[in-house]
C-alpha cells in the first residue's frame, strides 16, 4: 500500500463516533516504548545502527503474521515535509519522528489503528488508536503486536527496571495510555481549573492545548498516566479508566446544570457557532475549534439533530495546515489557510438546500 492511502482526507475507523461515552471521550491511545538489547538507543546510536534497527523490525512486520495485518512501511527521510506533517496532524507519527534526524520510519496498519514508529526516541514505539473510550481494547491490540514482535526480537529488559527506555519517565511498562476528552461544560463553568491539579495529584496528567483565549483549544483535554514503574499495565489502565469515568460524570452534571440554568443562552451560543461554521469566509484554527466544540455539545444535548458527529471528528483533523495545503495542492499563507478552512467547513457541513450559497465564492 502506498503512503497516499494515509494522506486522504476521508474518515478512518478511529475518527468514528462509536461506543460508550463517545459523546465525551473522542479517542483512546495506548503507546508502548521498546528498545532492542543489541543496539544503543537513539540518543547514542550511529546512523548505521539506526538503519539496522529499521531493517530488522520492518522485516518482521512484513512477514506473514497471525492474525494477518498488513503494514505499510514509510521511510521518513524519503518522505517530503508536507506529507510528514500530514501524518503528524493525523497523530500517526510524532513531531520528533517527523524531524527525520536519523534513519527512521513508520509502519502503519491499513485501518490506521496500529502503528510502529522506528527510531523515534526509542527503537520501537508501538501505538494503538481507537475511537471513543476503549482503553482495554486499545491495550490488547498494542500488547498482542508487542508479544508477536518480542518472539523475534531481543528487547532491552531489566529484571528490576522492566522495559528499558531512553527517557526515565517511560521506564518499566513503557506504556503511556491516554484518552482525549471533550469537556465544554467543565470549561465554561471554570470547574476545570481545580480538576486539572486534582488529577495530577492522583498520578495522572491532564492537559489542554491553549490558544489565545483562556480556554483549551476546542475544550479538548488529554488525560494520561504519569507513572510507568511499579504498577502493572492492568493497574494503570484501571486507574486511568476510573478517573476518566469520574470526569465524564462531572462533565454530564455540569452540562445538565447549564441546560437548566440558562437554556436560551446555551442554545444561542451553539447556533451562533453553527452559523459561523456554515457561513464564515475566513476561519482561524482557534475560532473553528471553539465553534466545533459548541456544535458538538449541541449534538450531544439533542439541540442539533441533523448533523453527524463523526464529520466533526474528521474536521478537527482535516482543518489543520498541512491537510489544507495538501488538498489545495499548493503552499498557503496563513490568511489563505483561513479561507481554505472556511471553505472546507462549508462543503462538509452545509445542507443540500443551501449548498449553492456555500459554493458561490469557493
Amino acid at each position, binding site marked *: 500500500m502506498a503512503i497516499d492511502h494515509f494522506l486522504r482526507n476521508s474518515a478512518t475507523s478511529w475518527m468514528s463516533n462509536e461506543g460508550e461515552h463517545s459523546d465525551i471521550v473522542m479517542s483512546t491511545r495506548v503507546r508502548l516504548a521498546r528498545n532492542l538489547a543489541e543496539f544503543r538507543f537513539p540518543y547514542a546510536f550511529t546512523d548505521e545502527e539506526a538503519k539496522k534497527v529499521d531493517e530488522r523490525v520492518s522485516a518482521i512486520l512484513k512477514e506473514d503474521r497471525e492474525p494477518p495485518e498488513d503494514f505499510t512501511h514509510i521511510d521518513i527521510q524519503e518522505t517530503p515535509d508536507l506529507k510528514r506533517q500530514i501524518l503528524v496532524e493525523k497523530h500517526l507519527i510524532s513531531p520528533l519522528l517527523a524531524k527525520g534526524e536519523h534513519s527512521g520510519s513508520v509502519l502503519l496498519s491499513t485501518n490506521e489503528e496500529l502503528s510502529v514508529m522506528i527510531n523515534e526516541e526509542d527503537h520501537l514505539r508501538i501505538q494503538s488508536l481507537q475511537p471513543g473510550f476503549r482503553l482495554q481494547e486499545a491495550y490488547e491490540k498494542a500488547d498482542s503486536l508487542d508479544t508477536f514482535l518480542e*518472539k523475534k526480537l531481543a528487547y532491552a529488559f531489566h529484571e528490576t527496571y522492566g522495559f528499558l527506555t531512553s527517557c526515565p519517565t517511560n521506564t*518499566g511498562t513503557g506504556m503511556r495510555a491516554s484518552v482525549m476528552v471533550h469537556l465544554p461544560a467543565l470549561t465554561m463553568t471554570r470547574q476545570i481549573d481545580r480538576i486539572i491539579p486534582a488529577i495530577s495529584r492522583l498520578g495522572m496528567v491532564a492537559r489542554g492545548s491553549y490558544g489565545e483565549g483562556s480556554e483549551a483549544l476546542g475544550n479538548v483535554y488529554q488525560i494520561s498516566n504519569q507513572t510507568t514503574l*511499579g504498577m502493572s499495565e492492568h493497574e494503570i489502565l484501571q486507574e486511568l479508566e476510573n478517573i476518566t469515568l469520574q470526569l465524564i460524570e462531572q462533565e454530564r452534571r455540569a452540562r445538565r446544570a447549564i441546560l437548566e440554568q440558562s437554556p436560551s443562552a446555551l442554545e444561542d451560543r451553539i447556533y451562533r457557532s453553527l452559523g459561523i461554521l456554515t457561513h464564515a469566509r475566513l476561519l482561524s484554527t482557534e475560532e473553528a475549534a471553539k465553534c466545533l466544540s459548541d456544535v458538538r455539545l449541541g449534538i450531544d444535548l439533542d439541540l442539533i439533530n441533523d448533523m453527524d458527529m463523526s464529520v466533526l471528528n474528521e474536521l478537527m483533523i482535516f482543518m489543520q495546515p498541512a491537510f489544507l495545503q495538501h488538498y489545495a495542492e499548493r503552499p498557503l499563507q496563513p490568511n489563505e489557510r483561513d479561507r481554505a478552512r472556511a471553505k472546507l467547513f462549508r462543503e462538509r457541513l452545509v445542507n443540500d438546500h443551501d449548498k449553492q450559497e456555500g459554493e458561490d465564492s469557493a
Partner: protein
Amino acid sequence: MVCEQCHERPATVTVTQNQQGEVTERHLCHVCAAENHHIFSLFDQSPFGINDFLSNWLPVQHHPAMSPRKSETVTCPACGFSFAKFMKLGKFGCAECYETFSPQLDDMFRRLHNGHAEHKGKVPLSFGRTIKIRKEIDELRRQMQEAIADEQFEEAASLRDRIKGLNAQLDAGGEADGN
C-alpha cells in the same frame, strides 16, 4: 515542578509551540498556560519536562566512598554517556547505562514514579521463566529464614532442597524439568 512563567504555581500543563517548524515546549501553570498560544498536538507531548526535573534533582550518594564528583564522571562503557550527560539530556544512551548509573537510579525513579522503583508489569516470555524462578527462590529463602527462627529445622531443610532444585534449573537456562 514550578511554572516557568510566574515561578509561583505548580506547572500542570505542557505548552507546545510550533513556529516555522521549530517546536518548543514550556511547562506552565494552568493560569499562565491560558495566556499562551499554539496548535493541537496533545497526543505527542510527554507528561512533563524530564530536563527540568533532573536539573532540580540532586542525586543522593548511596556509596559514601564515592564523592559527588566521581559519580558525575562515571561513564557508560557501551555508549560513552557520562552521568553528567545523562543528567543534562535527561535520556539514557543504552541499556548498559541503567547498570552503570544504577546507584543513583532508585532515588530518581521513586521521585518520578510515585514512590516506585521496581517494575511490576509485563515480562517478555524469554525473561519470564528465569525471573519467575528467581522470585520463587527469594520467597523460599524468606520462608527458610522464618523456619530457622522458629527452630523448624526439618521444614528449613526441605525448603533448602527446593531452593537447590530451582538453582539447578536457573543454571540450565531456566528450562523446567522434563522440557
